[in-house]
């Protein structure tokens, strides 16, 4: 098959264009480029579609969605602050618990653990991320809340939650019935632990050996080396891991819905039931009879999308930055 436009090249028609035309590489190259583009397109598309379909509420309610505290769909009042607050609170609790644990695990696995154990233990920690959200939720309802959250919450409430003793500490005040921001935060902590730990571990392993050797050769203990040299070196990457964990926590739906109590009232106490953006969308979807209601929920989805997108991008950039941080050596 000789294309009419084929330039004369001597004996063999080996010009790349000619070959492509002859052997069907053009469609191939187009298809793989399209497939690659589709990944990017999906991200953009999600944002666009959510934006478009949430228009009714956006137009009707405007900025008050994120400034108003009242959520009354029947009365067409859509204020998402309780959900935003709930999302942030549960995520914060999760981070406060998961960060030191995750960092500790990463340090243990990358610096201290004997090599044989490293793969197995690392794998086990990663398995925590494999358990589906809905299973965490069921476990939360029937096991974790009664066996762990309840006693812990009661303790916190009795120790710190009396307004007479601690008037400026509202976060541990009762009443407390199990399903709460605290419960959701703790379960989220277990769920994001693998993310923080895995990324921190990769970051720590990327710190050049020469840095550790320099510190040790000066007479540092192992801990001093880790704390004063290795961790500071990998700080931006570890920060990226935290932000990534935060992004995960923001979007978790099922586990949170099942243990947070689903009450759309703003409360300062971690021991009160709450609501998160993802939970309200999941819970109220079935009841959203009017187009305005549905579009409001979609707008909440848009909010979630934007928050998560920003966090993910920042996190990935931070993590990328550590692996490219090599000491500059000019002549």
């Amino acid at each position, binding site marked *: 098959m000789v294309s009419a436009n084929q330039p004369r090249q001597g004996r063999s028609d080996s010009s790349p264009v000619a070959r492509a035309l002859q052997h069907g590489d053009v469609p191939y190259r187009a298809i793989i480029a399209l497939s690659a583009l589709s990944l990017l397109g999906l991200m953009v598309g999600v944002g666009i579609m959510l934006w478009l379909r949430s228009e009714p509420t956006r137009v009707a309610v405007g900025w008050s969605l994120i400034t108003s505290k009242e959520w009354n769909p029947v009365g067409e009042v859509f204020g998402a602050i309780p959900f935003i607050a709930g999302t942030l609170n549960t995520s914060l609790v999760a981070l406060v618990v998961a960060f030191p644990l995750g960092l500790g695990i990463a340090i243990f696995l990358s610096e201290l653990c004997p*090599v044989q154990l490293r793969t197995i233990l690392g794998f086990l920690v990663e398995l925590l991320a494999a358990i589906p959200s809905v299973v965490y939720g069921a476990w939360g309802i029937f096991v974790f809340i009664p066996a762990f959250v309840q006693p812990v919450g009661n303790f916190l409430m009795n120790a710190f939650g009396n307004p007479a003793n601690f008037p400026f500490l509202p976060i541990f005040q009762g009443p407390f019935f199990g399903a709460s921001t605290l419960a959701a935060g703790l379960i989220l902590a277990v769920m994001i632990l693998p993310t923080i730990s895995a990324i921190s571990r990769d970051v720590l392993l990327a710190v*050049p050996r*020469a*840095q*550790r*050797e*320099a*510190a*040790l*050769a*000066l*007479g*540092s*203990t192992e801990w*001093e080396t880790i704390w*004063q*040299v290795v961790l*500071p*070196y990998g700080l931006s990457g570890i920060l990226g891991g935290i932000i990534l964990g935060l992004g995960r926590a923001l979007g978790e739906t099922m586990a949170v819905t099942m243990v947070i109590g689903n009450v759309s009232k703003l409360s300062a106490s971690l021991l009160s039931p709450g609501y998160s953006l993802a939970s309200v969308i999941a819970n109220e979807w079935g009841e959203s009879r009017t187009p305005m209601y549905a579009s409001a929920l979609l707008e909440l989805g848009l909010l979630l999308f934007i928050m998560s997108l920003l966090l993910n991008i920042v996190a990935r950039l931070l993590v990328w930055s550590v692996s490219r*941080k090599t*000491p*500059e*050596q*000019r*002549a």
Partner: protein
Amino acid sequence: MAQSVPIALRASVTAPPLPVVSTTALNAVSELSTKMALDRVSVCYGAFVAVADVSLPVYTRHITAIIGPSGCGKSTLLRALNRMNDLIPHTRLTGHVLLDGEDIYAPQVDVVEIRRRVGMVFQRPNPFPKTIYDNVAYGPRLYGGIRKSELDQIVERSLRRAALWDEVKDKLKQSGMALSGGQQQRLCIARAIAVEPEVILMDEPCSALDPVATLKIEELMQVLKSDYTIVIVTHNMQQAARVSDHTAMMMMRPDRAGEVIEFDVTTKIFTRPGDKRTEDYVTGRFG
């Protein structure tokens, strides 16, 4: 220091072990005191013997060079002196490494303290991504409880001794990584000096530097010699000849283990070496 009685050691399998006592006795004659001594030291990584049966003195406030072709275990030998080999899993050391007569591999010994007393400068400069000040102050800060004014003094003193003070005194808050290669290496030397070591180990310290920077460091070594005992590993023979007082020549045995085939006053090694292999090496007959 007078180069009196030369001490030629041939640490081969058939030679009798050299106990520390006899070295001291000889030292008394030669007016050289031994800061560190290796006594029949072998280092193994798992089953592989990297360094075999080395006995060597390191004289106080002198520069001892270890030379030899690549892969013959020079760095391994150097790292045995401050127990940096401990960092590599499955490493075993037999024999004794003595610092002021005490075995640094004895069970109750605090490795952290050894490494303070025996400092190290590495092949590639490896300053921390901290300010110049913080780089030098890192070591002293580990001890805690030092007043800022004292710390300032320590930093200045260390940088002066490393011949870097004049170049950086106005930019102590700048990152250590922003310096040139030669300056970074001197920063690493200042950093090592700041904890007041007794011995400074240098593992090919100039191999990543240009000739001008290299010369500066070689000059620095001559000055440092009056306060510190120095052991330098180098693949650059001319450097060893220029810089050191004593030289140990290492070679790889057929079984890939490294051994010291000759140890003597530097001038003798390079003018009238006792072993033919040494002669071949220093005259460049093989690389």
